[in-house]
């Protein structure tokens, strides 16, 4: 795994995502965006669909973006980015723009990526546009008030997978965005977590430099949505990896490598009990989650549980 950034001191100082935005205290989306933009640099054009990021970063007349950025609608980030990429391509060919690489980057939420945005993502990946698509996965439609998405994990409380006497939260398992992206045979797919900043930045840089579509899904814990303490958002993002719930890997031209090894996995309970959205889980449900994680972890070659 190419290490563009080997330690924290190598992280560039220039800021492209400027403070003064209206994200919740402890929100991890700005952390992900800030680090990815540092990894890529100023020569990019960013597209975002509707979501938390778009709303908290651009309340008229303020913008936190120090790179060109646009927001069109909710379900079409992949398509808008395709258009931007095509315009850049043809203009470079016609000599109307200098022959310098300008990265097309999408920052989208899980809703705008694998639910309502799935079609346009799929089209963009199939057509092979040169872009980096970063899904900021906070596991629900957070911006509209914590409604469940396909990316919401099994058992989680959300306002539309309510916990009651009859139904205990979301009963479906999480839709795997990375695997869906990988099924399009694109050159680069990766998962990342805000708790592993160098891993995230190296993957972002790699995905941007690769010719063709790259997809990175970043776990971004949400303070109000997951019902966690604001100071725990990074800790929870770390536990997700250390329990094997959110394994960090990359798939390059079809072959998968785990980039953050977990020699001894923690029990999922350590991760779940920090989050109010899992506060209602029964023993049975926790067992189900654990055995599913055990199964996936074995396939990936993650370590055994303590």
């Amino acid at each position: 795994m190419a290490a563009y950034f080997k330690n924290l001191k190598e992280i560039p100082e220039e800021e492209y995502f400027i403070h003064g935005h209206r994200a919740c205290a402890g929100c991890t989306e700005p952390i992900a965006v800030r680090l990815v933009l540092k990894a890529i640099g100023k020569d990019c054009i960013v597209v975002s669909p509707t979501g938390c990021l778009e709303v908290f970063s651009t309340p008229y007349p303020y913008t936190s973006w120090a790179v060109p950025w646009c927001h069109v609608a909710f379900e079409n980030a992949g398509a808008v980015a395709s258009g931007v990429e095509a315009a850049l391509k043809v203009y470079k060919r016609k000599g109307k723009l200098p022959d310098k690489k300008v990265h097309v980057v999408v920052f989208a939420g899980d809703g705008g990526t694998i639910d309502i945005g799935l079609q346009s993502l799929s089209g963009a990946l199939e057509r092979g546009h040169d872009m980096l698509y970063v899904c900021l996965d906070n596991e629900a439609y957070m911006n509209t008030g914590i409604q469940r998405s396909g990316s919401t994990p099994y058992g989680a409380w959300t306002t539309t997978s309510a916990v009651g006497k009859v139904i205990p939260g979301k009963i479906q398992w999480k839709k795997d965005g990375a695997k869906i992206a990988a099924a399009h045979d694109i050159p680069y797919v990766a998962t990342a977590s805000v708790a592993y900043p160098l891993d995230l930045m190296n993957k972002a840089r790699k995905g941007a430099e690769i010719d063709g579509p790259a997809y990175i899904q970043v776990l971004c814990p949400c303070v109000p949505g997951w019902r966690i303490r604001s100071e725990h958002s990074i800790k929870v993002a770390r536990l997700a990896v250390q329990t094997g719930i959110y394994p960090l890997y990359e798939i390059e031209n079809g072959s998968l490598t785990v980039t953050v090894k977990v020699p001894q996995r923690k029990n999922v309970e350590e991760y779940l009990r920090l989050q109010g959205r899992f506060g209602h889980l029964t023993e049975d449900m926790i067992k189900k989650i654990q055995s599913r994680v055990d199964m996936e972890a074995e396939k990936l070659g993650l370590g055994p549980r303590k």
Partner: protein
Amino acid sequence: MGMECAAAAALAAKLAMVDVIAAYPITPQTHIAETLSEYVANGELDAEYINAESEHSAISACIGAAATGARVFTATCGQGLALMHELLPIAAGWRLPIVMVNTNRSLSPNLNIWGDQSDSMASRDCGWIQFFAENAQELFDLVIMAFRIAEDERVQLPVMVNAKGFYCTHVIEPLIILDQEEVEKFLPPKKIQKYALNPNNPTTWGCVAFPDVQTEIRKQWDDALRNSIKVIREVFKEYGSLFGRNYDIIETYRMEDAEVGLLLMGYACGTCRVAVDTLREEGEKVGMIKLRVFRPFPFDDLAAASKNLKAIGVFDEAISVGGVGGPLFGEVRSALYSLERRPKVLGFIQGIGGRDIKVDDFIRAYYEIKSVLSGEKRIENDFMFLQVRE
């Protein structure tokens, strides 16, 4: 020489040297998308051709490309235009000079691939400039002019050129085309706009606007669309002086001493002229008022054409279901309301789902108008379906 209407539209886009095409096929627009694909594959047109996976994505890609500064073209109709609906106001509100050919197709239900105006009427408030072409020649000319108008600094708005599905897509008609040199004389190369998405000048497009600013944003856009009529007139005039085909915003036929005007847009105008001639031979004082520009709504030109008329019959190929009648009828009536001497305005719905519009239909409608004028008859709500079997 004869050319299929759709091919003429594609040729116009090629001559305009578009940079990016993003389209999704839908009958009867398909031949436009296919011809353009051939041009690009053969290297005759140096453009990026995005095979969008839906019309929604097609217009989204157009928006992304235009925001980055490219000259963009697309085509659609019917259900496709309906699927784009969410984004049409965004394309216009963002002041992007996208040119689209809409091959007017009936909206479902039921599935009907033939030409009527229900699709563009359902999107009339989306803030685009809208033209209606009568035939292959107009379609070709209007598409070329559309780029020039759209990209004018004083306009910067997308343009929809409507052409009746099948009649004005699959029919082969004679037309005079321009060559590349002539088009380049008229249409300057695309300038990348000042605020285009570019790392050298980072701008933010599509922020969140609160109640305290949305009104001003709308008004700015509405002003721009209204004021574009001056530029449209200018460009029509210049095209006429360069190439000999003079287009007006409203074209009148035998209206000099008319007492009744038959008002409509698009392909059916050809049939209407024959009806006018037939009626004139019978001594009736009738003429045709053809709207070429539907948006921005040509208030002044319409008022001028309606002077001294006793009645206007407005022919719609769509119905505003449960509303005031045909959409064009409702708008014309409203626009003429403040005239000191208002003509009687009556609406007629015909051509729904591509049903053939005959000379006889216009003649029947004319005699309906006459009986209303003479007091013999009343039409409920002043509009009626001309061709329905009840």
